[in-house]
């Protein structure tokens, strides 16, 4: 974790100084060590380059992702491959710009600091859109929501809990570094219930503790609960409660002060929405033709949309050819073969089907 490594660094650097405490040089060196480490912890580089220029110069996109959430961001230890809903988004952005992708696995606690400190170009790690994160408090921008989620609870069937009302006095496991703790406290306070919590730095530890009955309940985004249930000792023993205690719109993030890059990531996401709306799939993207002027602008055959964003004209075609449209991405990871989160009737359906997946005008 950032804080722990900072403390370890200070420890190590200060030990390099002379042991004699009365030596002025030793004391000065120790002070220097602390100051150096302090600045290292806040490595904001002042560069004149925009993120797009940096990515093109580097030849690859560095995306912060989750490595331990099957379905959204998961690193298969056996093959060393990343896969998931969020991973596809990173691939889409890289395809639009025309570079490779490098994935940086991040814990919930370090993900925002990594983006602020320019260690990654974009953060696609099931992060909730909140006011505090969007404001200049944290200095981050949220791209369109790719998954509308809500916070829920997973409990053991044997405990006979049917809703949050039955959980007075329960112990709840949570993972640190997310909006979960605050939402949990708010929800219990609203219902006038008392609770005990246990907070862990890592999701696997937190869910492991819940599975070992150290807690009566584990709380997180419902998509994460669906994913984690597959890792439980006996998945069938657990049930996700119908209560949803918060809104958790998940999407990619970029930094403040980089409008061009923000627009690019935003419209890559919209490209996947647009493609599904008009039936452009991974199979037919390269050969799709249409007389509809809007679709022609999308495919780059007219209108010069690519130049406006600073990308090649066929950027949208490259995106769909690389990862498919939104429906295909959803089906691949969250459909019946994946986490099996039903799309029909939920907010994640296309706007024409009553959901919130909606791309603005392509002109």
């Amino acid at each position, binding site marked *: 974790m950032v804080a722990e490594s900072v403390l370890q660094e200070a420890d190590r650097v200060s030990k390099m100084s002379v042991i004699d405490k009365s030596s002025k040089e030793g004391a000065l060196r120790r002070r220097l060590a602390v100051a150096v480490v302090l*600045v290292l912890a806040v490595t904001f580089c002042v560069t004149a380059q925009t993120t797009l220029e940096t990515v093109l110069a580097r030849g690859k996109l560095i995306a912060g992702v989750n490595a331990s959430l099957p379905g959204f961001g998961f690193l298969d230890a056996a093959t060393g491959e990343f896969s998931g809903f969020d991973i596809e988004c990173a691939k889409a952005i890289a395809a639009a710009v025309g570079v490779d992708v490098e994935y940086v696995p991040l814990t919930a606690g370090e993900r925002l600091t990594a983006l602020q400190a320019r260690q990654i170009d974009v953060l696609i790690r099931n992060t909730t859109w909140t006011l505090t*994160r969007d404001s200049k408090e944290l200095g981050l921008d949220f791209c369109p929501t790719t998954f509308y989620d809500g916070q829920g609870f997973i409990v053991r069937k044997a405990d006979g809990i049917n809703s949050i009302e039955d959980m007075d006095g329960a*112990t709840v496991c949570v993972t*640190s570094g997310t909006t979960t*703790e605050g939402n*949990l406290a708010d929800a*219990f*306070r609203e219902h006038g219930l008392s609770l005990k919590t246990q907070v862990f*730095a890592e999701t696997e*530890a937190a869910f492991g503790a819940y599975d070992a009955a150290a807690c009566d309940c584990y709380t997180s985004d419902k998509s994460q609960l669906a994913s984690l249930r597959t890792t439980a000792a006996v998945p069938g023993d657990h049930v996700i409660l119908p209560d949803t205690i918060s809104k958790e719109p998940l999407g990619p993030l970029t930094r403040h002060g980089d409008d061009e890059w923000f627009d690019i990531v935003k419209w890559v996401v919209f490209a996947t929405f647009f493609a599904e709306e008009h039936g452009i799939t991974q199979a037919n993207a390269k050969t799709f033709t249409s007389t509809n002027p809007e679709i022609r602008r999308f495919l780059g055959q007219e209108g010069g949309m690519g130049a406006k964003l600073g990308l090649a004209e066929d950027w949208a075609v490259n995106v769909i050819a690389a990862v498919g449209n939104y429906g295909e991405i959803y089906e691949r990871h969250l459909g019946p073969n994946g986490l099996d989160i039903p799309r029909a009737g939920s907010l994640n359906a296309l706007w024409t089907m009553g959901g919130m997946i909606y791309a603005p005008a392509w002109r």
Partner: protein
Amino acid sequence: MEKRKVVSSHAIPFWRDIRVLRVVSQIVFLVAIAAGIWWLLNNLQTNLRNSGLSITFRFLGDTAGFPISEGLTYDPTNVNVYAFLVGVVNTIRVAVIGIVLATIIGTLVGISRLSSNWLVRRLAALYVETVRNIPLLVQLFFWYFAVMLTALPLVKDSISLPGSIYLSRRGLYLPSLVPTASFSVWLWFLLGGLALAIVVYVLRRAQLKRADRPGIPIGWAAIALVLVAVAGWFIVSGNPLSIDLPVLKRFNFEGGLWLSTPFASLVLGLAMYTGAFIAEIVRAGILAVSKGQTEAAKALGLRKALVLRLVVMPQALRVIIPPLASQYLNLTKNSSLAILIGYYDLLNVGTTIFNQTGRAVEMILLIMGSYLTMSLFMSLLMNLYNRRIKLVER
């Protein structure tokens, strides 16, 4: 003999005069360091300004909004700075108990390694070698996930011991004493008793000194305190303290004193790990005392236990205390691993605060400051103790 004045035709030029060079080089070095620090801080300042962030501590007065289930009485409506304080108190709890346990384990194991009994010696060596070489994090996970969460029963099947003590996977529940309305009055009696105890101590010590007798009259002071406290108990109306028993509700026990399993795992893990290092330090200290001392003591007819207690250990302590201080500091700082097993220590709470408020730089400064303060305080105490037991050379 007359002193002859040395007359040299040329004085040493200042650029070769070693006294001047010494001073100048130190000044130059100081200036360079100061310039370096100033440049780094200026860089930090500029970068923060350019990114639109700034270092303020105003967020400490905001509502925390997250729960902390262990430690001082706390509610999510309390402010951030109080939440952090709860975390600090939790860390101090772990550190104090861990240090006491580690010292006991370390001393016993260290002495065992020098035992004449082959089995005891081997077992002690096995313990030290194994525990020292496994990373602390792995040991903490072992204690929490592999031991506590599998060996202990579920809450509803708790092991219940006489006197309302319950042991389960969630922790140990004990009956606790709760202050009642008349407690504040009784507190005055306690303070009065303490003052009386100090007076008694001082007087008795002076008395003993005059009679040239050794002794530390702690017993006298303690008796004075207890007498006043008991008198106060009966004088005050009602009972100043009442007993709160843990009662099993639907999910957990309510009431009583709760020692959670993460707390126990952390304390045990830290004590065992640091204890192994302390064992080696103790062994080194004992071996540092020259063999002549042991032989002379045995020649005087002292048995082995008394040789150790009266002759060897006082001399060994001078070698043991300085590295022991570092081990205590290590234990305090290693307690920051608590976040990985779900204990609410100061790093856990601090991290939550900086995740919720986004104030990473300020919180890291606060966390570093807290550890620094605790470490410096501990070093101070150990140095004072060291100075007291130092060998006064003739």
